[in-house]
């Protein structure tokens, strides 16, 4: 028999109490992991930002357009490797509840500045060739059962009218955090129609995407671009893609902070639950610890016994919680409306946090019982009546 066997036997001494504690920890770890997944998914767009991309928008607000003619001027700025642009289209696909990003883009450059949208050469060539074609993300294709060659009809709101697009490409996300819920079509197609129906709105784009040659010079490039358009009718504000995405999420910061806080409160609660279990267990075994000490077992042996039991329970609870989390997140991601999160998956940091949390809980819950078991005098332990 080894000390670890006694740890295991002690942990299962009150089976119901141990099972309930493990269940409590597993549910709490599951809830913690799920909340963290919500938080990290919310920030997936920020995480997916490339360090070498800048976003150039109207200095007043993102909703004001910029002249497409700025493209060539931006290209002249030092350390600018490529310039692309995009325009928010909005509109409705089948039903208003079907929310996903629909954007008019520069077909010649867009997929060069966004290499994480994986599109075959053939699909890209077909997309470029056909003015009224579009490319959609694989998640959208799966959700709406769309295939190449199918027609997507949008009801325009910002740009009124019926808009028909032929799907010529389905892009795959390169990373877990890459958003595969978007639709891209030709900005030229939009612009032609604006020229005909609403000339005052023609030749404007929503924002520029600038790929910098040297990421260490991003701030200089941003400043230089804004300087080019200073005192013009449409001044620009250039920032890194990450800062741009964070600006989008700023309005939801309070909710995310609350979710963050709740997730850590859950950790605190399970710490108290396990702490209570361990204190009860150690109190019941006061006489046994005294016997072990009398037999020659030292404080470090008792520490091993109590800490081992505590961490065994917390790690087992944590493992069960994580085992429940994976299938739940998969199912949840399938039933959740596409486009709500750029990507919904369990990040490695969430797993690390869960494991660190259960380990910390296991250790913290054992501190008081260890202190009591080690410092109680043997003779007092023998007199103890639980």
């Amino acid at each position, binding site marked *: *028999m*080894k000390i670890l066997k006694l740890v295991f036997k002690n942990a299962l001494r009150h089976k119901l109490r141990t099972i309930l504690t493990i269940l409590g920890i597993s549910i709490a770890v599951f809830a913690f992991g799920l909340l963290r997944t919500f938080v990290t998914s919310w920030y997936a767009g920020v995480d997916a930002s490339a360090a070498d991309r800048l976003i150039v928008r109207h200095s007043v607000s993102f909703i004001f357009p910029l002249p497409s003619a700025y493209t060539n001027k931006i290209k002249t700025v030092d350390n600018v490797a490529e310039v692309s642009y995009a325009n928010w289209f909005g509109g409705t696909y089948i039903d208003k509840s079907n929310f996903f990003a629909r954007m008019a883009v520069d077909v010649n450059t867009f997929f060069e500045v966004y290499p994480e949208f994986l599109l075959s050469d053939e699909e890209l060539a077909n997309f470029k060739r056909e003015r009224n074609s579009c490319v959609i993300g694989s998640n959208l294709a799966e959700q709406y059962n769309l295939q190449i060659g199918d027609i997507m009809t949008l009801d325009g709101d910002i740009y009124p009218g019926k808009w028909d697009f032929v799907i010529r490409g389905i892009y795959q996300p390169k990373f877990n955090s890459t958003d595969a819920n978007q639709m891209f079509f030709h900005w030229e197609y939009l612009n032609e129609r604006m020229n005909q129906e609403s000339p005052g709105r023609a030749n404007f784009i929503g924002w520029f995407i600038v790929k910098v040659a040297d990421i260490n010079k991003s701030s200089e490039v941003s400043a230089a671009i804004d300087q080019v358009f200073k005192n013009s009718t449409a001044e620009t504000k250039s920032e890194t893609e990450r800062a741009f995405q964070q600006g989008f999420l700023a309005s939801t910061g309070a909710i995310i902070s609350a979710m963050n806080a709740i997730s850590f409160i859950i950790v605190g609660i399970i710490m108290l639950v396990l702490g209570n279990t361990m204190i009860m267990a150690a109190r019941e075994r006061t006489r046994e610890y005294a*016997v072990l000490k009398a*037999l020659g*077992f030292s404080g470090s042996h008792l520490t091993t016994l109590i800490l081992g039991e505590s961490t065994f329970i917390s790690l087992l609870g944590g493992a069960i919680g994580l085992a429940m989390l994976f299938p739940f997140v998969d199912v949840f991601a399938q039933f959740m409306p596409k486009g709500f999160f750029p990507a919904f998956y369990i990040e490695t940091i969430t797993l690390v946090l869960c494991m660190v949390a259960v380990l910390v809980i296991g250790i913290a819950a054992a501190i008081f019982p260890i202190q009591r078991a080690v410092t109680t005098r*043997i003779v007092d332990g023998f007199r103890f009546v639980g």
Partner: protein
Amino acid sequence: MSKLIEIRDLKKSYWREKLEIPVLNNINLTIDSGEFTALMGPSGSGKTTLLNMIAGIDKPDDGSITIEGQEISSMNETALAKWRANNVGFIFQFYNLIPVLTAFENVELPLLLTKLSKAERKQQTETALKIVGLADRMDHYPKQLSGGQEQRVAIARAIVTDPLILVADEPTGDLDKASAEDILNLMELLNKEHEKTILMVTHDPHAAERAQVLHHLEKGDLIKSDKKAVQEH
């Protein structure tokens, strides 16, 4: 027989708030190796306190306890724990077995502190259980044993490391007459055939009769008696 335990000017008091309650007053005592000694006295006479200090689980306020040349009252807790593991076997009134461990595992427990291999531990544990007559109950848990059998397991646990001294605190206090007799026979056997030095605290004059030497305590003072004197009590 050589001197094994030497106690000089031993004093111990307990404090209840600000009130000092003397438990042992200037105890001087010598116990020889291989001796079966009984400590008797009324409740509160200090016999268990004296036993605990000889066993190294309590410390005196003053005086010295020397066992086989080692002054144990000045040892720190870690050294004392090691000393106990190597030199003392404990037999308690309420057996104090670990309920989630089998008889074998309970007896093996003190051997986990030694460097013995698994096979050596097994052999030594089986030998101890054979000596107490429970070789056929090794896989039983304490709740599956009678009180007398539990105490036998506790005795096996006490002797498994072959300690210098066996200390027994009311070893028959929780047993029926027949079981108590069995336990006393076993202790006598350990003393006579295995030459164990035994120090036993008891209320029971019948149990004390088995001892070769009797020390009587009263209000913290020690009065020495021999076996014959016990019979006269």
